[in-house]
């Protein structure tokens, strides 16, 4: 036992060249700078965080609220500054922490905007806070040559590789389900929409292409971390990384994510590879090398190993937490998020809410668009936790209000909130999701299994 832990420790703390990590710092900083600027230029700060009256917060994070009005641009401006700091290696730690805090703050505001790749960015920027990515070719190292290192402990590179490996591998595991493998859904639905393309249109309309894509995608996700890890297969694996992500970028509206993955996976390449382009950059920037005679001993090996272990355990356990819930995961979405289930299902829902006067049983049918944006409506209609949150919001809006209609007026007190929801999963005919007889004001938002959701009835009619 001690022998193994000794070997792990040795492996994690052996000195490696800092160049791959420095390269990753530049790549990650540049991608984030691009991503944040793109987000702002598309007007999404206003659309997603300033305009909506209501936000779907995460369980336990309802205290995370948007800043008032245009102040909401502040975290984005800070992120621009922080990504510049990361690229330049200027006040690197502070920049990395600032970026992580701002990014995560924004992501926590509204789960209607949840994307796996945002979660990925949050995690990587968290990791970056702990890494010595500024020990070479950085403003910090220029100003304070004592922080320069010729080697850094191997775990600092390994953790990023493992994080990427986890993303791919769990994305692959998630695809091991019959809809994906034996019905080629949802890809069949998404690909056939390209049936009008010249020349290749007919190909996209066929189901066999969807099957080929599904199987290839699944095998790719499951194996690519390993092929990227071995020297012999690395180049060809990286070729597949490029092809895979460019194809997804062409076919689906997934923004910068393909580029994040294409460039991030370069971390699997050895120092000799990164030295090529970092040297070139150094030349341009007239970077002066200083020969260092000693490497300071890394302290707190135990703390690092424990931190490392805990982080990885969480990363493995969180995507598997769904196994604690009964029922069909795609239907209930209990344990669905934060699990690398990317491009995995096509769910469409129609949710109608009713505010009911308990004394007369008369109701007000809600126009969702009065309270929510189109994106929020779309996301909410298929996700039970969001349906419940919206119901509770309606309860607050309508409780203790006077509903006047000409001469008649009704004082609404503690109204019941009902919802009639239908959902279609992966192209199956719609099924009842939530029954109108359920009063959602009686249900609380917890991590417990939701019994008020209708059971999924398997149907092969798709």
């Amino acid at each position: 036992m001690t022998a193994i832990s000794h070997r792990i420790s040795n492996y994690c703390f052996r000195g490696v060249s800092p160049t791959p990590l420095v390269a990753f710092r530049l790549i990650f900083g540049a991608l984030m700078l691009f991503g944040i600027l793109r987000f702002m230029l598309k007007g999404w700060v206003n659309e997603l965080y300033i305009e909506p009256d209501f936000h779907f917060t995460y369980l336990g994070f309802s205290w995370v609220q948007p800043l008032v009005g245009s102040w909401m641009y502040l975290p984005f401006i800070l992120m621009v500054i922080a990504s510049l700091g990361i690229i330049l290696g200027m006040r690197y730690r502070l920049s990395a922490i600032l970026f992580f805090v701002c990014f995560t703050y924004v992501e926590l505001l509204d789960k209607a905007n949840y994307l796996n790749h945002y979660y990925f960015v949050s995690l990587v920027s968290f990791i970056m806070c702990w890494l010595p990515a500024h020990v070479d070719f950085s403003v910090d190292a220029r100003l304070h040559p004592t922080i320069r290192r010729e080697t850094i402990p191997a775990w600092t590179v390994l953790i990023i590789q493992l994080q990427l490996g986890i993303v791919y591998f769990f994305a692959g595991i998630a695809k091991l389900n019959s809809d994906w493998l034996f019905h080629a859904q949802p890809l069949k639905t998404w690909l056939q929409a390209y049936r009008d393309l010249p020349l290749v249109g007919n190909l996209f309309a066929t189901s066999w292409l969807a099957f080929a894509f599904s199987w290839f995608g699944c095998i790719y996700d499951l194996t690519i971390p390993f092929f990227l890890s071995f020297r012999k297969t690395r180049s060809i694996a990286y070729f597949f990384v490029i092809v895979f992500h460019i194809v997804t970028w062409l076919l689906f509206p997934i923004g910068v994510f393909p580029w994040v993955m294409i460039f991030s996976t370069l971390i699997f390449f050895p120092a000799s590879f990164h030295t090529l382009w970092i040297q070139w950059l150094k030349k341009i920037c007239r970077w002066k090398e200083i020969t260092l005679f000693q490497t300071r001993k890394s302290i707190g090996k135990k703390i690092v190993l424990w931190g490392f272990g805990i982080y990885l355990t969480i990363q493995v356990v969180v995507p598997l937490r769904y196994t604690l819930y009964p029922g069909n995961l795609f239907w209930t979405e209990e344990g669905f998020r934060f699990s690398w289930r990317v491009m995995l299902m096509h769910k469409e829902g129609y949710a109608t809410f009713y505010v009911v006067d308990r004394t007369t049983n008369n109701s007000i049918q809600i126009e969702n668009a009065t309270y929510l944006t189109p994106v929020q409506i779309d996301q909410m209609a298929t996700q039970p936790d969001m349906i419940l949150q919206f119901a509770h919001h309606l309860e607050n809006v309508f409780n203790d209000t006077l509903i006047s209609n000409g001469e008649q007026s009704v004082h609404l007190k503690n109204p019941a909130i009902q919802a009639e929801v239908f959902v279609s999963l992966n192209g199956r005919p719609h099924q009842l999701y939530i029954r109108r007889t359920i009063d959602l004001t009686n249900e609380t938002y917890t991590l417990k299994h939701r019994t008020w959701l209708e059971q999924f009835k398997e149907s092969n009619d798709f």
Partner: protein
Amino acid sequence: MKMTRYLIASVCLISFLFTQCKDKEEEQKDDFKKEAILSNLADNYIVPSYDDLQTHLNSLSNSWNDFIATPSQTNLDVVRMEWKASNLSFHRIKTIEVGPAMTVGLNGALGTFPADTLQIETNVTAGTYNLASLDNIDAIGFESLDFLFFGTDCLNKLTNSANRKAYVTAVITKMQNEVNQVVAGWVSYRATFIAGTGTSSTSPFSLLVNAFCKDFELAKTAKIGIPIGTQSLGIQQPLYLEARRSGFGKELLIANMESIHRLFLGKSNSGANGSGFDDYLIALEKSDLSATIDNRFNTIETQPTTWSGTIENMMASSPTTLTDYYNYMQGTVVYMKTDMASAFGVLITYQDNDGD
């Protein structure tokens, strides 16, 4: 390396096997193009319908000029007839709020109801107004004319007030201008529309599917729901009825539903059945869904013909009939929005999205 080669080989083999299994019928299904729907609708439905609306509005304008020249009950009756004909014509095309109609904001300008009669009277008294301003959105379009042509003592008021006559002329001219813009816009937009088979949320095909669902939902909510009290604890709101003074709301509802049905089937105004959403659904092996929606539209467009009197009459005499009708429409939205739109793979979001 070996592994990869093996992989490629097996993918090719699987692909080959799948191609071999394909029969003739399946091939035809794969050959179905969305462009067929778009070009059929553009040439046989949309452009002719806008032309028809343009013609009707011109007739309305002419009849109104005749009335100004010789105000009389007979001439007012002709104006009213032309108003009905143009409003029906508008209801045959309003679903397609895509391209030029969206730019112009045609539905808002022509079809907003109920009318703000106070605002109309204020404008008439003032004699000066900017009908394009947002304040006047409830004082223009067919609904304002419903009030001006069918309101209490309207013949007398129209005959004796030059301001009132000028207001009507301004309203009709505005409508004509807007429809003319849309008609002109479609000359160049047609090509964009037909080529718009992409999958983004702003591609004409996506816009069309969304407009189709949206207009149906709007009819459900505004023409029936709000008046019968679905948003007001069951308390009826007759003031919110469309074309209340002429009592023409039922006919407009029927025209609206018939046109949505025709759009689904890809039927021209003359009745020739071309490519429509139904054919696309059949190509996607969802003929059951196609039949369900078709049947539901049949029921929805024929049921109101059995109602006695206007919708307002029905609200008094048989409110449950309207509630049942409303619920049936509500049930139909699910087939359109959830099943059909998801089968087409149409997106509603324009933001980054990883499919979950």
